[in-house]
């Protein structure tokens, strides 16, 4: 029963706030930070190369207003971009899983879209769309819709064959099987994809801002680097990471709320 307990709790992970499961991780992370700090002092690593955690923290505190303002831009790009890529990704995945022809036609383009370096086609984007928020959102979408498509397609195709046959005997059409069986089966896969996508959205927004912008953390980094304000660059990275971790956790929480049957079934006992 002890082992049982263990697995039971393990299943709750992110959603759980049992303090005892956080002690070791927090200690380890702190140790790491202290080590980093020490190494920087011991080996006299230059501030302009790799700032110590303490100077990054100090920079975050001192430039909090600046960082906050730029974060607002970036977060909006991330969220709008991610939501759009969710819609687009899910629709595309649906079409691909539903139809052979669409799959064979669209999948290669979807894959190709991932191998195009955004920075290189930036001039095209800019000339067609301009310099507003839209090109950044497009970049976010381009980067984050792919894992959603791949995972959702795989999920839609993972539906249990026996259950599919059962539905057919009930007279279900191709479409009904899709909606009533394949879609629910794809949800756990979709959430895996969403977790990857939301994290990639963060870097997507940063890259989008490099392509031409006047605010956002990516812009701030671009501007700070040639001035050798390395702490500011790292401060931005820390905030980006925080945003990434927070959004990832948010997806996990939404998953818990949205799929109680899945979690319940897994979690019981």
């Amino acid at each position: 029963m002890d082992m049982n307990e263990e697995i039971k709790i393990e299943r709750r992970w992110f959603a759980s706030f049992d303090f005892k499961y956080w002690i070791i991780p927090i200690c380890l992370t702190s140790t790491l930070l202290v080590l980093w700090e020490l190494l920087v002092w011991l080996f006299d690593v230059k501030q302009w190369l790799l700032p110590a955690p303490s100077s990054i923290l100090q920079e975050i505190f001192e430039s909090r207003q600046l960082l906050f303002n730029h974060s607002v831009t970036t977060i909006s790009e991330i969220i709008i971009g991610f939501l759009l890529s969710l819609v687009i990704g899910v629709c595309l995945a649906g079409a691909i899983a539903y139809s052979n022809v669409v799959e064979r036609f669209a999948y290669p383009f979807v894959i190709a879209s991932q191998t195009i370096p955004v920075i290189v086609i930036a001039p095209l984007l800019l000339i067609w769309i301009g310099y507003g928020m839209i090109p950044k959102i497009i970049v976010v979408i381009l980067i984050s819709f792919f894992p959603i498509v791949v995972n959702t397609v795989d999920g839609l195709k993972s539906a249990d064959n026996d259950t599919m046959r059962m539905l057919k005997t009930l007279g279900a059409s191709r479409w009904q099987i899709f909606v009533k069986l394949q879609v629910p089966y794809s949800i756990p896969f979709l959430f895996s994809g969403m977790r990857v996508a939301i994290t990639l959205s963060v870097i997507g927004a940063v890259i989008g801002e490099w392509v031409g912008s006047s605010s956002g953390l990516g812009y701030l980094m671009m501007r700070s680097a040639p001035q050798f304000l390395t702490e500011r660059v790292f401060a931005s990275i820390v905030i980006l990471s925080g945003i990434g971790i927070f959004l990832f956790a948010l997806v996990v929480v939404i998953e818990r709320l949205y799929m109680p049957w899945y979690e319940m079934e897994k979690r019981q006992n």
Partner: protein
Amino acid sequence: QDVSDIEDSKEKGVININLALDWYPNSNHSGFYMAKENGHYTESDLSVDIFTPANPEDVLKTVGAGKDDFGVSYQAEVLLARAQGIPVKSIAAMVQHPLNSIMVLKDSGISRPSDLAGKKVGVTGIPFEEALFSAMLEYDGTKPENVTIVNVGFDLGPALLGGKVDAIVGAYWTHESIAMESQGYEISVLRMEDWGVPDFYELVLVASEETLQSKPGLVKTFLTATQKGFSEAANDPLKAVDVLVGFNPEIDRDLEIKGIDLLAPLWSEDDVVFGTQNSDRWKQLSDWMKEKGLLEDHVDHQEAFTSEFIE
């Protein structure tokens, strides 16, 4: 000069040298390739490897950290880097004047900075460049607020040609303008030093303080060989481009041929030797930057460069 340090650092008879370029190889660097091709480095038992880091400012970091022995950077960047404690010094000026400029399409009718009032101007987001631009506007009697600045990232040329902006700041009149003209557009250039901006050295060759102190002989040897390369390149630009393309086959030869004609005179202008830098020019620039709030007051321009290796 004490050359004994060279002997110490030899490995199997040659010294490996890393040279970091500011940007992808182009005619600005043809002197290095000429020196390589003609054996000036190997004559002095140097084996020079040439690299391009991701961002121009990375050069000062890799050089400052001792990863690369020499690097190509910009005069203002050297000052900014020193402000943050990066121990690098300019050891030679590679181009005697600014290459950075304002570019407009010829048929836009823009011929002076004040014509840009009410227009859109594309920049790359480097604060120093924006300050240069503002100074040009002010010099020509226009308030910078009258111009809309658009950060276009890396894509200056396309932004101008695509009609998204009326002018761009940050492109070299020895490179981008030629590339754009090759696409069938006519370009006008407003050069910085013509419009009230302190005349500065566009590209400088840098080394770390550590290297300068411990291996002066090496620096000297490297510079001497490099000077030879650049003077040969200046004498035979066509050959220089061929050598450059030989090392880097992806380079567009026609572009570089046009570029080097504009560039070569700036290497050793007015009979100064390649590499010469003078204290006044450094002071002018650093004072100007301090005045504009770009540079912290504690930076000493005298420390930022050394002329001791140029003869």
